[in-house]
């Protein structure tokens, strides 16, 4: 095993995780799982940021991923509240059944 890791590996890992997230988004029907897939994609992007931060020896990448986290937290709060409301009104968590804007 080499003592160092090519930067590209991190990026590939990031891309793979992102693609898995996207696949989950496309293939899954539970709103909750779809939402988790979004979080996975965000995480994948964060990994790129932090790899680049290491590459360029600048903490800015960390700041970006920090903001991503904050936004993800806000998004999770609102998103889960929406899911709760949808469930309350339609009694379903199937994303395909929530296809009209009217409640």
């Amino acid at each position, binding site marked *: 095993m080499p003592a160092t890791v090519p930067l590209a590996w991190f990026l590939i890992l990031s891309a793979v995780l992102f693609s898995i997230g*996207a696949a989950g*988004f*496309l*293939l899954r*029907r539970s709103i909750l799982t*779809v939402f988790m897939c979004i979080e996975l994609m965000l995480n994948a992007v964060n990994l790129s940021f932090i790899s680049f931060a290491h590459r360029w020896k600048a903490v800015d990448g960390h700041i970006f991923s920090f903001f991503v986290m904050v936004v993800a937290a806000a998004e999770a709060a609102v998103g889960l509240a929406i899911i709760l409301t949808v469930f309350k009104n339609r009694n379903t968590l199937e*994303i*395909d059944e*929530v*296809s*009209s*804007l009217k409640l």
Partner: protein
Amino acid sequence: MHQLWLIPVFPLAGFLINGLAGRRLSKTVTNVIAIGSVLLSFLWVVKTLMALGPLEEAYVEHYFNWISSGPLNIGFDFAVDRLTAVMLLVVTGIGSLIHIYAIGYMSHEGGYYRFFAYLNLFMFFMLTLVLGANFLVLFVGWEGVGLCSYLLIGFYFLKKSANDAGKKAFVVNRVGDFGFSLAMFLLFVHFGSLDFKTVFSKVAEMPQETSFGLLTGIGILLMVGAAGKSAQIPLYVWLPDAMEGPTPVSALIHAATMVTAGVYMVARSFVIYEHAPIAREIVAIIGLLTAVMAATIGMTQFDIKKVYAYSTVSQLGYMFLACGVGSYASGVYHIMTHAFFKALLFLGAGSVIHALSGEQDLRQMGGLRSKIPMTFLTLLCASLAIAGFPFTSGFMSKDAILLAVHEHSPLMFWIGVITSAMTAFYVWRALFLCFFGKERGHHHPHESPLVMLMPLGVLALLSLAGGYFNIPHWLEPIFGRPHEEHDTALVAVSVGAGLLGIFLAWLFYVVKPGIPDSIANALGSVYRLVYNKYLVDELYDATIVHPIRDGSTTVLWKGVDVGVIDGVANGVGTTARGIGGILRRMQSGNIRAYAAWVLAGAVLVLGAITVMGGAK
């Protein structure tokens, strides 16, 4: 620091209190706040001026950087020099008196607190205008007093004529402000500053312009602005209509203070005019023409306030004339004396109107001499002053102007003398019609309350003796020493003209009341033309107002708005709906399908970048 900002802030506080809470305050409290704030301001002016001493140099206070953008750097600065000092004293002094008078005059009117709030706001803006140390601060005050003027002209907003008059004043003033703005732009472009000090020192280094040039342009544009505010040809038409407002407003804003702002501005910018003789000459000609024309109209009017309004226009013309011939000091001198006697005339007229319960037509008055003697006496003083009776204040300032004019051009002097005779004639005509002869109306006149008479008394004293404030001498550090050429003959001529006017008025309206009608008949069409104010309003209506209105209706509204803008808007809407109808099929409501589209888009973009060779 002498805390100059306190001067305008007192009335502003009064405005805020009365304007916001006035509905809930009693009349007494409103009075105390309104008058107290103006009096405080007056006292602060006096205190500051005493503290500042001789004021050979302008005293400037910088408060904050107001606008700072690229090369544009404008501070919110106040400055006091001798010119400002005169204006400050006139504005706050006369303002205080008129505020006191208004207590009595407005006591039966609705919207009492609103009136005083507006009046205080006006004081605030007027003081800002006078104190401003650069053109932009001056402009703030300038626009502010315009606003207050509009609000106060339209004070009786249930009356259509009052509303129309307010709008007219506003619109006409806009024309002048346009000129003023252009002048400021030019100043800024060429001098990089709007500070009086900077601009004028730079102008002073420039050579005098003998032909049409930059300074002439600036001067003319400034004069357009001044003409708007100070009611000069061709923008004077709003002032007579402005008499729709309450009489104290007419006295304060449309006679004593605001309308003199134009003259003040011209005097303030005298350096520019000194370097642009053509512009100065135009100022003189405009002033003279206005003076003559307004005087002729004034002779034929029967509404007492209209008479005084045209008199104001005419006197403002005098002041312009003074500035135009280079005697700025006498112009400012006349601002002050005019403020005394014209305020008194209006307040007296207000007292008469008050006594007659709102009657303004001179033909319905008469023989009031014994009914309202105090008013008569004070109006007599004012009429003497405006007619230039020797040793009254009007005599002093008008003499100073006419002497300067004679030096400049004898022709102008003679026209001025004739105008002064006409002035004496119409003012005394009003006085005689009002107080002499037999009673014509069916009123039960009653003398005004003390609170109204007291300011009248003070102003009467000032009208008679106010000329002994030797303003031209006081202003020497700014405008330089005037030519002390006391030609007794010229003085005699002008005094003679005034006395002649008085005599003719006495002859026409007391001794032989039939003469005016026969003259009017004899002159026929000319008389009707003058009586109808030379049909200037109708002319403006026909040449400016109607074309604009019709053009707006047919071209802008029916053509551009309905045809082009609405058409475009509707067309965009229709097109969008059409496209949307097609794209709607993509909106399946299936979130995962949307995600697939997003992904497809991302792949497309990435692919495109690859194809274009972005990924090296």
